[in-house]
């Protein structure tokens, strides 16, 4: 068994009376590509957001590289309103609720379902800004250019990264002027710039045509190889998912309904039901 | 402090004046998510119109005229300064509001020559002195809260039971969906400004009955206080704005009564900051979550 990168235990996310993620547990091991799939509104992005610190989960624990990073249990008003299970499991452990940047700093980088590039910045700067996290200089040394060596090194790394992902030729264009496929790719490059150990892709192929999707599939495969990356992805494009995933988790209405290799999932009756029950439009 | 009563009476009166302005802020904020900085100045212009019109025509003409012209002004501001920016970032809209406020003040300055315009013909009856519980005061002090209450009841009815009122509620919940559902966004927004300006005009007539002159800066402070009241009560909520206005009016006068008048304005702002930090949604506001 290889090294465990990400581990979710009993993660529950409840908004008011709606349980968006219900008692979700999953594991990702080093070097794996794991896909999280499910019909629309199944709670995939919400799960993503609780892992990356955007939301504070109502209950459960997320561990990264063996260390708990996010943890909560129902408290206050939620104590009564809580509809999930295992309310007591983490009740005696301290609550962990870091902001997203802290989680990114631990080595987990993500992309967004609806592309969130920095609009007024060039391709190069978009990636360079992601390097900001890795700086050692403070604001004074940065302002007065005492960090030249670091800055030069970062710029070199960014140039290299852009070369690898094939965006060198557009490095001085505004990020928003790129075609859709390249914007996706830039977002992935930006996430890679933070030197993560786990890359989390939120529907990277959304809105892509088959050709672009194929390119992306190849690209993700290359990223895994070149960067020795562990990847968690949410996706609707089943071709892509079945092509590159080592393992797949399927959730519906927030609950885990199946998990296993692509072959197992493809033949799982609950998964077929869940998908047939809901018109899939992506 | 000797005898709480005069301070309370005065506080209620001031609160009533703030309330009528605060509703304008809260309505506009509820729908456009815009702090309409120009609202205080609309209030001031209403006062000026009252001064000029009451000097030249009888009361039964001048009062409707004030109402109509103020409403037209509010409507025009929305069409000219806010509508072109509907798709722009919120910051642009707020800057536009500050610009409009600046423009109105400077134009008003130009026409008045910078001199406070004396209220020569205050509305009779309500400007007379009366004695309540042994304390002398103007009748308008007592009329203001009552009229405010009546108008608020009417407004709440309007919002809950008329078609355009429902449109306003829908737009304040979700701008785009409301648009998709066939609600005429522009007329709803215009209506909001019309109602807000109408109340500001009523407020101005009551307010400047109490005071001898209208200066171009007269709108600034009441406007800002009314805004604080709206935030305090939970911006977007009409009962919130009214309750907030009365609370602020009363607490302000009590602070003066306690001898801390140096900080009566500062207190209002401190209250604002505390409310914003502790409970940004105010007393009655609804929580809005951003989608990621």
């Amino acid at each position: 068994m290889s090294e465990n990168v990400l581990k979710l235990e009993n993660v529950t996310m409840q908004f008011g009376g709606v349980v968006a993620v219900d008692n979700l547990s999953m594991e990702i091991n080093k070097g794996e590509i794991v896909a999280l799939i499910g019909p629309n509104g199944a709670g995939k992005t919400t799960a993503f957001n609780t892992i990356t610190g955007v939301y504070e989960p109502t209950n459960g624990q997320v561990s990264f590289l063996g260390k708990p990073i996010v943890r909560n249990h129902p408290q206050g008003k939620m104590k009564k309103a809580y509809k999930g299970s295992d309310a007591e499991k983490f009740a005696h452990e301290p609550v962990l609720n870091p902001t997203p940047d802290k989680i990114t700093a631990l080595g987990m980088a993500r992309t967004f379902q609806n592309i969130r590039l920095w609009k007024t910045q060039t391709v190069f700067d978009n990636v360079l800004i992601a390097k900001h996290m890795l700086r050692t200089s403070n604001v004074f040394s940065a302002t007065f250019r005492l960090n030249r060596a670091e800055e030069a090194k970062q710029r070199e790394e960014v140039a290299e990264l852009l070369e690898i992902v094939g965006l060198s030729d557009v490095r001085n264009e505004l990020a928003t002027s790129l075609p859709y496929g390249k914007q996706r790719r830039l977002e992935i490059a930006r996430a890679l710039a933070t030197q993560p150990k786990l890359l989390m892709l939120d529907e990277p192929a959304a809105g892509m045509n088959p050709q672009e999707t194929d390119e992306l599939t190849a690209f993700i495969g290359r990223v895994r190889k070149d960067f020795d990356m562990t990847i968690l992805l949410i996706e609707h494009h089943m071709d892509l998912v079945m092509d590159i995933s080592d393992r797949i988790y399927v959730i519906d209405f927030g609950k885990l309904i199946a998990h296993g290799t692509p072959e197992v999932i493809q033949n799982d009756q609950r998964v077929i039901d869940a998908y047939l029950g809901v018109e899939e439009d992506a | 402090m000797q005898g709480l009563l005069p301070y309370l009476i005065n506080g209620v009166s001031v609160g009533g004046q703030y309330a009528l302005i605060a509703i304008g802020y809260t309505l506009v904020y509820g729908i456009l998510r815009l702090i309409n900085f120009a609202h205080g100045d609309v209030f001031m212009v209403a006062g000026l119109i009252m001064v000029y019109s009451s000097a030249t025509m009888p009361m039964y003409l001048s009062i409707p005229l004030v109402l109509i012209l103020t409403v037209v002004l509010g409507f025009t501001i929305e069409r000219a300064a806010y509508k072109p920016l509907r798709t722009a970032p919120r910051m642009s809209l707020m800057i536009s509001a500050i610009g409009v406020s600046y423009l109105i003040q400077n134009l008003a300055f130009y026409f008045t020559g910078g001199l406070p315009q004396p209220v020569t013909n205050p509305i009779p009856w309500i400007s007379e002195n009366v004695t309540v519980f042994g304390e002398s005061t103007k009748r308008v002090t007592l009329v203001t809260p009552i009229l405010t209450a009546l108008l608020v009841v009417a407004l709440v009815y309007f919002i809950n039971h008329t078609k355009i009122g429902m449109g306003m509620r829908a737009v304040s919940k979700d701008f785009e969906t409301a648009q998709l559902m066939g609600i005429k966004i522009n007329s709803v927004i215009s209506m909001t400004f019309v109602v807000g300006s109408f109340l500001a005009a009523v407020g101005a007539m009551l307010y400047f009955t109490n005071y001898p002159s209208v200066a171009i800066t007269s709108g600034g402070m009441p406007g800002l206080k009314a805004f604080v009241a709206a935030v305090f009560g939970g911006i977007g909520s009409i009962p919130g704005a009214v309750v907030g206005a009365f609370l602020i009016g009363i607490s302000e006068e009590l602070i003066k009564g306690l001898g801390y008048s140096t900080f009566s304005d500062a207190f209002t702002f401190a209250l604002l900051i505390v409310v914003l930090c502790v409970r940004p949604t105010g007393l009655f506001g609804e929580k809005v979550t951003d989608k990621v």
Partner: protein
Amino acid sequence: MKHMKREHLITAAVLLALLVGAFVLDATLPSYHIAIKVVKKACVYSLVAVSMNLLNGFTGLFSLGQAGFMLLGAYSYAVLCIPVAKRAGVYQYFDGGIVQFSLPEIFSGILGDTVGGVVGMLCALLIGGLIAALCAYLIGLPVLRLKSDYLAIATLGFAEILRAFFQWNALGPLTNGSNLLKNYPDLGGAAAYVILVGIFIAIILLLVNSTYGRAFMAIRDDEVAAEAMGVNLAHHKRLAFIISSFFAGVGGGMLAMYMGTVQALSFKSAMTYEILLIVVMGGIGSITGSVLTSFLYIASLEWLLRGLDSGTFLGISSPIFKNGFRMAIVSVIIMIVVLFFRKGIMGDRELPDLFKPRRKAAKKGGDAQ
């Protein structure tokens, strides 16, 4: 940095020409000439506008507390620089006040009159900036969590509270209550202002182009993405707020220097609005724009357009040119810019961009909707 580009050379030449121009003004005109006063005031406004732009334009935090931070800087400068001998006169109602030293005098004792005086004044300016920054740190903790318009109104309120405190008679021995502070020294002529403000703006420019500046812009463009890419929002917002306030404080100190007298009454929210509108007209996110507009705005208002108020303008006499017309015209222009040329004079371009060889068709000034 090895080979200077053409546009950088031209930019350097323009800046040098400006500096020489300021020296020429100082040498040829008497110190009380309107041109020198305009240059001085415009320099101060440039600095303050740029500091506001750093926050509102580059970091996307809509703060309206500028006047409050300027107030802190102005008072710090004045209190620290009034000669000891004149304190009894200035603090006439407060027995000479409680501060009984003057930085320029202290440094004069060590470094000689000329150098010491200047060093003392600069120290006072920087202390003013630091006090403003400290204040920003303290209120930044709770206030910066607020969303755009709430932040604006909270900072506005903060500035008003500050003003009430400075006017409070109980603090009179320090602030002179509602009364003027005066008799403190001025740094010098137009050139001194241009150099000093130039240095401060250059520092802001360096900051904006550093890794921190890029992080600020990332926050402005997309807060969620910035946070997801490891930018600590609370820390960076506070940093921008503190730095902006520091320079606003320094700018306030320089405004005090220029005015010759300081009174808390001057630092109203109207001053913040004025600066905000300068920033907007110059282009949110353009330092060049803020500077350019400051000069245009101050020169028109204080000098060139005065004719609009006093009957005759450009040789035309008209009864409509009466008091207040100038401000009315200026505010109409502001509204036109706000509504129809939303990017302002410069958009987000800087001086060197103007001299770049044109690659494509120039970007449109206003973005049509």
